[in-house]
């Protein structure tokens, strides 16, 4: 049994049953899962969670679906890594990286897909579908294969090669659409009306999908010894992840898993070529103006973010900030994280790290805060973004002489660093 009491419209409050519904019939507002928090509080304990699987399913009490055998490739419980070298480069104090590159298909999307497809299967769906900027495509195709479901994945035609391959290999149907992600998304929203028997994870089962991102907050708190951090930095595409991370910390407090009421500043990270939320934040407005994306951070290239308004609200009400970074800064961010901490992130991770650096330099993130940065996707997925940016130090003939010729000066520094 799960602890879901129903669905509710975030805009007008109308109630709905816990079915494959995502939009309020009356005002088109998003539906959100509601829980019986008292019942959850009466069963959930730190020990019960700690005795659970090393995956998102250890938090099943706080998820919208329970299943003895969920659709699962092992998403979640990824490393939380103390990042002292990066912190000192940025003038920060206690900094942690939530390394979600370690998920089964290499991004945080495995969290939301495992939840969405477990619920979809319970609701009787046999087909998993999605509109994707790439990472969701990988994850839906893989989880559908794992569950023996058919998959129908729609992507913009110009995605990174690795993301196309990592979707197609699972053998489902993959459709490349000549258009932007926002075009793909509109097409899928329309297809949902025509194909009600398909579970579009980020359309008609989006209500459940979105809840999966709360596990990022749950894990961070548990890994910090059941304490919330002071500040988190989260990349924004649709704005769903950021909104749910903020919700996750609140829920832990609500069900009695934290000793102190959390006060987590939530800051958002966007690429300058697709920054509708950062722009609204900077301008101090409520209205999110859609944009036509143009950035190497393709996984975040959503010009018309469905949860943009809620993300903005979560940022403002928590005292967080929001900024955007150029493509050059994104590449610097990828390099900085790799060089200082040994973690290779995709372009979305570069956005997060570059924004972290920018907000630290502005003083919006302070050295006296315990900070967590969400690094949400693996670098191999977008390796082509680094073509011509990184490569061999030298290309030489296989002789001692050419080795010495090419590296002579550098050898001295390497040696002296070792003896010092």
């Amino acid at each position, binding site marked *: 049994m799960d602890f879901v009491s129903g669905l509710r419209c975030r805009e007008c409050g109308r109630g709905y049953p816990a079915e494959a519904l995502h*939009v309020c019939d*009356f*005002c*088109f507002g*998003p539906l959100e899962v509601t829980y019986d928090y008292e019942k959850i509080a009466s069963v959930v304990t730190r020990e019960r969670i700690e005795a659970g699987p090393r995956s998102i399913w250890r938090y099943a009490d706080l998820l919208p679906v329970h299943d003895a055998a969920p659709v699962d490739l092992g998403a979640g419980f990824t490393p939380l890594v103390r990042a002292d070298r990066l912190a000192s480069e940025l003038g920060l104090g206690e900094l942690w990286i939530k390394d979600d590159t370690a998920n089964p298909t290499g991004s945080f999307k495995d969290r939301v897909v495992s939840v969405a497809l477990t619920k979809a299967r319970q609701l009787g769906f046999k087909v998993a579908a999605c509109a994707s900027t790439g990472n969701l495509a990988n994850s839906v195709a893989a989880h559908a294969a794992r569950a023996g479901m058919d998959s129908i994945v729609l992507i913009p035609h110009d995605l990174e090669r690795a993301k196309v391959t990592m979707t197609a290999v699972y053998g489902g149907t993959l459709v490349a659409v000549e258009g932007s992600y926002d075009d793909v998304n*509109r097409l899928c929203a329309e297809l949902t009306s025509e194909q009600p028997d398909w579970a579009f994870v*980020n359309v008609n089962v989006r209500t459940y999908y979105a809840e999966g991102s709360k596990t990022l907050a749950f894990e961070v708190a548990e890994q910090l010894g059941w304490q919330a951090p002071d500040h988190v930095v989260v990349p924004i595409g649709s704005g769903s992840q950021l909104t749910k991370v903020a919700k996750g910390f609140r829920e832990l407090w609500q069900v009695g898993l934290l000793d102190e009421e959390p006060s987590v500043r939530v800051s958002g990270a966007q690429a300058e070529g697709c920054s509708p939320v950062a722009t609204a934040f900077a301008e101090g407005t409520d209205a999110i103006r859609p944009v036509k994306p143009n950035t190497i951070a393709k996984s975040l290239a959503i010009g018309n973010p469905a949860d943009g308004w809620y993300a903005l609200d979560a940022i403002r009400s928590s005292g967080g900030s929001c900024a955007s970074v150029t493509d050059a800064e994104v590449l610097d961010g990828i390099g900085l994280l790799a060089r200082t901490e040994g973690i290779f992130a995709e372009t979305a991770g570069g956005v997060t790290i570059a924004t972290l650096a920018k907000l630290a330099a502005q003083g919006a993130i302070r050295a006296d805060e315990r900070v967590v940065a969400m690094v949400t996707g693996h670098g191999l997925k977008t390796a082509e973004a680094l073509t011509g940016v990184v490569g061999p130090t030298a290309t030489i003939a296989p002789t001692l002489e050419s080795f010495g010729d090419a590296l002579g000066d550098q050898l001295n520094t390497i040696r002296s660093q070792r003896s010092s």
Partner: protein
Amino acid sequence: MTTVRIPAQLRTLTAGAGELSIDGSTVGEVLVALDGAHAGFAERLFDESGGLRRFVNVFVDEEDVRFLDGLATPLTPGQTISIVPAVAGG
């Protein structure tokens, strides 16, 4: 005539029809005429100030009207308007 595509959530207003033909020279005119033909559309699509609700997206031939002229966007015969819930994706 403009073809208007109706999302599943609003087909209770159209006796199940997913597509209608409506007259009008702008997007706003067509949507108002739609409400005239099938009462209930206006209160769902428009907020108190008469603009589109925050979670309603309207497209003319695949282009979001917010990149065009909003409700004042002019129409030529044969174009298609899609009403699409904004809550999707990511």
